[in-house]
């Protein structure tokens, strides 16, 4: 990190520090969510029902146009050449054969790439979203094995690919760090996550551990992971004078437009990013080198560019989840009460990014204990910048913590669910804040009953059916409620009772557009058929990132604000002849196609009548969401209890998942159909993490060895059992709609539930993911 970045980071930390001292002390009524959202009381509307995806018919017909499918005249196709060393310089570069190849329009290297500013690193400003702050193709230096060193534009993709293969690059290698052990030997730094150190100390946990009557002290390891969205990264890019249009597949349209504008030294409103369909994201669909290179090439060539990464290209220039080495040590009284909770360890990063896989986040509010020692240290390596991947921190952190709790339960001879319930905190164990909504114990009890937990083999390795050893395992799941600042919504209401809701949000399969329409329909008192949702376009006001499971809350709060503005505007238009005359926006709600006095339903007027009398065809309001102070006032999280039945073949060591149940406590569930799918999706990605997923990194040269879907194994249909999902459906009184985002919690706890089930089946404890059969033979 540069000095400037460190200073920015520190300043951000100070502001957050002051706020975090004041906001908890404020009265509830000053805080967003202090008064429950009235929609929580609506029990007979669309919320809480099963609604099929509104974009479903388009997608099953193959008619949704993804970023690489946008038609443009005079289009050129791009191919990239990637470095084959981890660090050094380009010594020789011969592009003559490529330039002479059929169909070639441009060969771009550091010699002729336009001058561009380095991307602003994610988190360094409200809109900065560079995955790394390395300048892109500005000089001959190489920083990771796979860095783009040349780009070819041609009339067809085949011509571009062929010409790229003709470029000869010679390298002068310089010393690099590509082995984790070497990186650790060079020294560690405490990880900083959004300006705050990843460290929590309460009491003397090491001393408490040493004198605890029962304890365990273990090391767990998780490998690198790749998101592997089935849609590879792609963009279709065109300049119109100094205005740039990017048809992209991204989780951050507004931030990307602002960051790209900075890179090219143009105003933010000169870049428009459109992304209506994202073919899977999971944290990976952000701003990487290819959009920047594609835009640069389009500018140099004076023609539109389609840059669609090959699958290998995605591995080379899009980062994944980094590896972790975690220690969990637990000290406990004979009754199971934790006296010490230690969770620390090391992750790898690069010098150019800021994603220290924060595996202690879930531990911070997971359990009560007398003492805590939590930290994440980072070391740097020459590798592709790692990034967010579904539940960054919690997904791998819960593997370590929840495995360790299972090990302690074994040591104590206490049922692992009972041990967890015994250490259930009554308030946030570190911040002391009250929980906004925590019903994890209820989720445990409901899950245990539905799964039939009492049939768990009491002794590991004791149940055998033919060749198969059978075991049950469980683990807690957890992910925070987040709501990021900057969200906005625009509502256009027409005289005939139609509403257009515009949010700069994203649909990558979460069902966002459908739930947004459902919620807006209820909020405005209109049938869902009369609601249109427009999204995925940076010209819509506000910034709503599809990350941190926050879109639902961010959109919810923005629509609350815009709806309030709409009510105020309608009351103004209604004037003195309306039955609503003299009422303030606080006294009025939307119902049945109009406004109604909240405590007197006889005083109402329809939207059509108000607009008709005012001789208006439409009313348009745009409003920012309230600042998300609720997160500093309450400890806000989602929870889950995960249950797994694993069957391990005693002959081959093969593990099959026979059953899986997720029992969730994540506020009120808005759309039961899409929510079930999101939970299952997270769980299935967790099964992959548990049993097969690993980005294999050659520690000799920093090269990713399995950059393909043939060699990076994902769960396939045959690996996925019917996954049972239940939820408490208890509304969080302090969030919009009483809901929490649920995109990430599903993956948390899964790997531990599987590892614990494998232990119960075999007596073998695997602390090093993935649990491949060689580790069980």
């Amino acid at each position, binding site marked *: 990190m540069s000095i400037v970045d460190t200073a920015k980071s520190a300043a951000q930390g100070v502001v957050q520090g002051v706020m975090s001292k004041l906001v908890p002390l404020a009265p509830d009524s000053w805080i967003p969510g202090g008064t429950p959202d009235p929609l929580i009381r609506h029990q007979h509307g669309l919320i809480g029902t099963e609604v*099929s*995806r509104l*974009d*479903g*018919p*388009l*997608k*099953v*017909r*193959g*008619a*949704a146009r*993804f970023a*690489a*499918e946008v*038609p443009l005249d005079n289009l050129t196709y791009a191919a990239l050449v990637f470095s084959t060393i981890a660090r050094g310089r380009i010594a020789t570069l011969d592009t003559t054969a490529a330039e002479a190849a059929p169909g070639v329009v441009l060969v771009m290297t550091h010699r002729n790439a336009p001058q561009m500013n380095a991307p602003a690193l994610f988190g360094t400003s409200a809109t900065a979203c560079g995955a790394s702050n390395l300048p892109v193709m500005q000089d001959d230096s190489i920083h990771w094995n796979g860095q783009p060193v040349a780009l070819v534009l041609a009339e*067809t*993709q*085949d011509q571009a690919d*062929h010409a790229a293969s003709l470029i000869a690059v010679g390298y002068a290698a310089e010393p690099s760090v590509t082995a984790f052990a070497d990186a650790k030997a060079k020294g560690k730094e405490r990880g900083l996550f959004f300006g705050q150190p990843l460290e929590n100390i309460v009491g003397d946990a090491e001393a408490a551990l040493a004198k605890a009557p029962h304890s365990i002290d273990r090391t767990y390891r998780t490998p690198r992971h790749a*998101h*592997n*969205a*089935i*849609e*590879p990264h792609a963009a279709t890019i065109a300049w119109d004078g100094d205005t740039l249009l990017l048809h992209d597949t991204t989780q951050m349209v507004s931030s990307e437009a602002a960051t790209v504008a900075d890179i090219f030294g143009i105003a933010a409103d000169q870049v428009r990013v459109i992304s209506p*369909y*994202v*073919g*899977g*994201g*999971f944290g990976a669909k952000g701003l990487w080198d290819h959009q920047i290179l594609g835009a640069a090439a389009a500018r140099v060539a004076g023609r539109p560019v389609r840059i*669609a990464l*090959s*699958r290998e290209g995605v591995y080379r220039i899009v980062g994944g989840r980094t590896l972790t080495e975690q220690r969990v040590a637990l000290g406990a009284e004979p009754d199971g009460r934790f006296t010490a909770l230690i969770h620390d360890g090391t992750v790898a990063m690069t010098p150019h990014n800021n994603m220290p896989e924060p595996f202690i986040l879930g531990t911070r509010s997971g359990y009560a204990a007398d003492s805590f020692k939590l930290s994440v240290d980072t070391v740097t390596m020459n590798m592709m910048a790692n990034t967010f991947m579904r539940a960054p921190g919690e997904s791998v952190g819960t593997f370590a913590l929840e495995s360790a709790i299972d090990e302690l339960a074994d040591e104590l001879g206490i049922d692992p669910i009972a041990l967890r319930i015994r250490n259930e905190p009554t308030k946030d164990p570190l911040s002391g804040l009250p929980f906004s909504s925590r019903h994890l114990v209820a989720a445990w009890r409901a899950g245990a009953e539905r799964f039939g937990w009492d049939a768990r083999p009491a002794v590991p390795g004791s149940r055998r059916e033919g060749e198969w050893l059978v075991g049950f395992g469980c683990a807690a799941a957890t992910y925070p409620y987040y709501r990021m600042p900057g969200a906005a919504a625009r509502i256009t209401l027409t005289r005939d009772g139609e509403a257009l809701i515009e949010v700069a949000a994203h649909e*990558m*399969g*979460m069902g966002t557009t459908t739930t947004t329409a459902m919620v807006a329909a209820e909020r405005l008192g209109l049938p869902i058929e009369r609601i249109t949702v427009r999204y995925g376009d940076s010209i819509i006001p506000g910034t709503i990132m599809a990350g941190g499971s926050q879109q639902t809350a961010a959109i919810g709060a923005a629509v609350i604000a815009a709806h309030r503005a709409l009510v105020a505007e309608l009351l103004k238009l209604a004037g003195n002849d309306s039955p609503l005359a003299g009422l303030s926006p606080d006294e009025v709600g939307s119902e049945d196609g109009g406004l109604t006095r909240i405590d007197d339903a006889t005083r109402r007027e329809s939207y059509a009548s108000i607009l008709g009398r005012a001789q208006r065809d439409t009313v348009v309001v745009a409003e920012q969401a309230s600042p998300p102070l609720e997160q500093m006032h309450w400890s806000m999280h989602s929870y889950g209890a995960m249950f797994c039945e694993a069957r391990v073949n005693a002959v081959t060591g093969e593990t099959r998942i026979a059953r899986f149940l997720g029992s969730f406590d994540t506020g009120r569930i808005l759309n039961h*159909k*899409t929510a*079930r*799918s*999101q939970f*299952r*999706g*997270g*769980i299935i*990605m967790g099964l992959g993490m548990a049993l097969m997923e690993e980005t294999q990194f050659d520690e000799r040269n920093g090269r990713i060895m399995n950059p*393909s*879907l*043939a060699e990076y194994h*994902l*769960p*396939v*249909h*045959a*690996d*996925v059992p*019917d*996954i049972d999902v239940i939820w408490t459906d208890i509304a969080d009184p302090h969030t919009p709609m009483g809901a929490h985002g649920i995109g990430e919690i599903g993956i948390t706890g899964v790997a531990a539930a599987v590892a614990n089930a494998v232990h119960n089946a075999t007596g073998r404890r695997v602390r090093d993911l993935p649990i491949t059969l060689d580790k069980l033979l």
Partner: protein
Amino acid sequence: MSIIINGSPAALPADPRTSLLDLLRDTLSLPGTKKGCNQGACGACTVLVDGDRILSCLALAVQYDGRHVTTIEGLAEDGALHPLQQAFVVHDGFQCGYCTPGQICSAIGMAAEAKRGIPSHVSEDLSADVVLTRAELQERMSGNLCRCGAHNGIIDAISEYNTEVAA
């Protein structure tokens, strides 16, 4: 030379390197068939050739002179969704929708294979008629990857469609 795509003839490409997938997506503006890996590992590019499911990324377009290719765009008739497409919507057999066209085309080809009695790795009796149990469906659909994790909904949709076709 021509190839029949969804009932209409199309010219074969001049460049013999052009895959059937790129012909569909880049030349014929039929991007419903998806490119997930371009190396036969993900199934997103599955189309039907004379009723058989193939991976169009591993097929050179020039090989298919005179053959009938059906893509996802060719399944819906008169604007109405194919029953399997409808079942995918009802059972939420997708999230992002990118693997979906391949899953649907693959499932149609798979049902035809089963009807012809072609056994799979999990078939108990190699010579018996194929009964498409859940395990059979999961085995036979495993060449179509889904990363969002819609597997349960996909198998539910295919299962319902097969039951309706059989009835």
